């Protein structure tokens, strides 16, 4: 079980989360040319090692998170909310986030 430290809920089983995708992909503007969209939607670095990826805490706080995780060891280096505004809110309230205390 990968244990993901959700910045809102605390450390939880990965089965509460849904894996998203490679978070390093920058999606182009909606009207960007086909080549840009082709690259964003279909092509991947597929890193063996530490990558940035998105997960959603589907059965928890429903936040989309950016997780820095090693794809070879499953070790997690960092987690933050994908939404910068949410990340800022949690940073402000972060003293007892998710501890339930």
């Amino acid at each position, binding site marked *: 079980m990968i244990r993901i430290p959700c910045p809102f809920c605390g450390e939880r089983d*990965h089965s509460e989360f849904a894996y998203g995708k490679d978070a390093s992909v920058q999606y182009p503007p*909606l009207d960007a040319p086909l080549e840009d*969209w082709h690259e964003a*939607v279909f092509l991947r670095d597929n890193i063996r090692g530490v990558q940035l990826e998105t997960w959603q805490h589907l059965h928890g706080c429903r936040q989309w998170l950016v997780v820095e995780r090693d794809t070879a060891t499953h070790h997690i280096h960092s987690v933050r909310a994908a939404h910068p*505004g949410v990340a800022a809110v949690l940073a402000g309230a972060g003293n007892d986030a998710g501890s339930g205390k």
Partner: protein
Amino acid sequence: MSARRLPDGGRIDRAEALRFTWDGAELTGHPGDTLASALLAGGVQLIGRSFKYHRPRGVMSAGVEESGALVTVAGAGDGARRDPNVKATVQELYAGLAAAGQNAWPNVRFDLGAAANRLSRFLPAGFYYKTFMGPRIKGGTTVWMLCEKFIRRAAGMGAASRLPDPDQYEHAHAFCDVLVVGGGPAGLAAAATAARAGLDVLLVEQDFQLGGDLLNQPLADAGELLAEMLDDARSAGVRAMTRTTAFGLYDGCVAGLIERVTDHLADPAPFLPRQRFWTVRARRIIVAAGALERHFAFGNNDRPGVMGAAAARAYLNRYAVLPGERIVVATNNDSAYPVAGELAAAGAAVEVLDARPADRVRQLAQQAGARGITVRPHCAPLRAVGARRVKALEVAMEEGGRWRHGGRQACDAVLVSGGWSPAIHLISHLGGKPRWNRRLACFTADANGESLLTAGAAAAIWDTGACRVSGQAAGAAAARALGKDAPGIAMPAPGGWRSPIRPLYEVRVPGAHLKSMVDPLNDVTADDVRLAHREGFTSVEHLKRYTTLGMSADGGKMGNVIGLALMAEALGRASDGDGGDGADPDIAAVGATTFRPPYTPVALGALRGRSVGGHFRPLRRTPMHQWNLERGAVMTIAGLWERPWYYPRHGETLDQAYIREAATVRESVGLCDVTSLGKIAVQGPDAAAFLDRIYTNRFAHLPVGKARYGIMLRDDGLVLDDGTTWRLSETDYFMTTTTAHAATVMAWLEELLQVRWPALRVHVASVSDQWAGCAVAGPKSHRVLSACADSPEALTDHALPFMGVGRMSLGGGIPCRIARISFSGELAYEVYAPSDYATAMMDALWAAAEAAGGCLYGLEALGALRIEKGHVTGAELDGRVTLDDAGLGRMAAKGKAFIGSTLRARPELQREDRPKLVGIRPKDRAARFNAGAILCRPGQLSGLGEGWVTAVTHSPALGHWIGIGFIRGGEAAWRGQSAVAADPVRAAPVEVDIISPHMFDPDGARMRG
């Protein structure tokens, strides 16, 4: 003579007798017995038949590594609880236990399958790869498949019941600071030390008693220490679980445990689960799982009467069973000496064969001699003699580095200690690589030093006292790592024997034809390993797969190391010329296989817990579920929902019912539960802009009080989902999605808002469970709604025009949302009430609809109505379809970009000859055809076809069968031509016309009212 129960001693409760049966014969044991100890005490020695050669087998161990005494336990009841391949050595005895031999016919004593043993020279490892191909007949597999039938029947050990398992199982979750695996001296010490430092400690032990090896030592020697350690752990606050196996370690310091709750009970309470699967999240895990004693390969080393020396110690001291009267103990290390002495003290005649030279065993021999035990250095077992149990042992003596025949020794038990293998399986699960320790002749594994620690024999520490200290050291280290005060205790060095082990894995002499088992559970012999070497299967991975070494139910606990040693020896001989029998093979060069979980086999029932039968997945019910059932609904599956399929009256069939229902909607009015549609509140100042990005059509200018049908694409430009979205206020929308994609769309919107477009101020909230929905459709729908509306003026054409949205109160105050939208092509409404008022809403609507001659209609009629109109649903929108394919190209707004707008322009998605949505009608109007049929050109009923039929119904409005589907080029390309709906898996081909999908009321006059 065979084994017998001693008149006193042991950790069994002699005050109580437990009757049980073995192959139908009644025997007696005591609480504290295992099935194996009770069988031995009862004089039963031949207990199993081996996997491949059906060789006779007895009790070989006292634990989970058992390879001989595998039995079938009948279980209570009608046979549904039959449990094959149970290791008698770990099955606790209970009153009424009924066990029987397996993999034998007619029984394990007289087994006709034993003929396989006589043919064994023709059945070496991998023989089946080289034969059974037969002549090439028909497809080429005919001969093999004929042979396979017989091979399958011969293989397979025990027979599982075919009846549903009647027992319940459950999951449980636990959290702790430290999980200690193993309740022996190391584990108990580790747990107590960590708990005293203030940590929350969970200790798990697979046995039914705590104590580990202390239980196997004489009560007089170890009893006091064990009591003290148990008391220490208990008073420190350690939570201890027995009958609980840590079967696997996983990422994140998570362990899987199986707790056997009722397997030892004669008559468990019906509400207890049979087993419980625990997921434990720890911050540190201490593996103190002990070590497993090995044997060595010698002739007939699997005969009943051949047993591990440590196992014999367990039977003697824990169960008060003396395994024989004339006992040969064969060893290459110090650990067999205490048991030899204890057996002699219990009255057996004991002789020790020690493979080590005289000068290395002199002191041990002197001590043993004082107890009347002869120790023969340079000696080892060569072949066990006796057809069904051991009657004598041929001995090998070493001279000048060579084994030679050394005479024959009458005996009734041969106890073997070939060294010890630390139980490093759990560490290996997490990637800890096994490393060969040449000095101690065993694999050890480095725990990662952070989350994982080891202690005791699992760390190759052989001495009880040192094991205890190692536990204290590990417990203290875990405590310090978790920020607690604990003393620094030095971890004792591995090992601990006075005289070093002599690595020895096989004993053989030139010219002797021996059947020497390496992995007895899979009948892998020493010759098989050499054959694998000869054929080039020399890597550990190839060796195990070719010979099946270590792939049996004990996971190689008994045989792996010996197999690796023999391969190393063979490789050494090949490269060095002649490695010689006495050489220490380079096992490290062969490597070890990765241990995979589970440590011991785990019942699938436990892993699935309560997700079984009707609860395999939760059932999602609409608030009208019961209401629908009470009105005769037959349900069908829609994702996790059950939805009304049709409402038969007076014994109607499905076809009769849905045709009536659809006709009623067209003629008067019908009600349909549409609660399962996904419903999402989309709120915020940027909600309109957001909708414009996710839908292909425009929403920004949708007026408040109006709804619009929208389609969403995926990033790749193919259709994701469709539905209507209602504008409730400037900043507040109510979106509906399909039933199938409700959850997908919700998560997708959240992803877009949180990851891709965080600047948009939009909140989405699922309100699917908040609102219950009912479609009211048909020419009389307005009348029905007016009849139950608290203020009917809210329903006038002016107040609620086509695609209008409003609030209304019906049935005396039920606050509803209503929209005038139609899926059926009739004048129709969707009405939503808060879920707890759903049945009240339905009562009110139904009273009015029934009075108007209306009906309730289900999914089948819904389908008929939408097929007549050419509306697409999941059968058409299957993830491979574009807007244009579905005839919805006009839904793509020009001049705005939306999700998928770029990639939908890819050339292959824009081809004119793509399959496009069409209507389909049989040429012979009386003919019927099926969804799933392939549309072909007449006369060309082969190949990939020109299209396919997605949905078919009998149209009550048109009076014949119709369908929709996709065909190359669409209707325009087929004008004036007919096609054939080919359906070879179900029906004869039917000639059809390709027509517009809008088959009924194409202008939509009825819908607009």
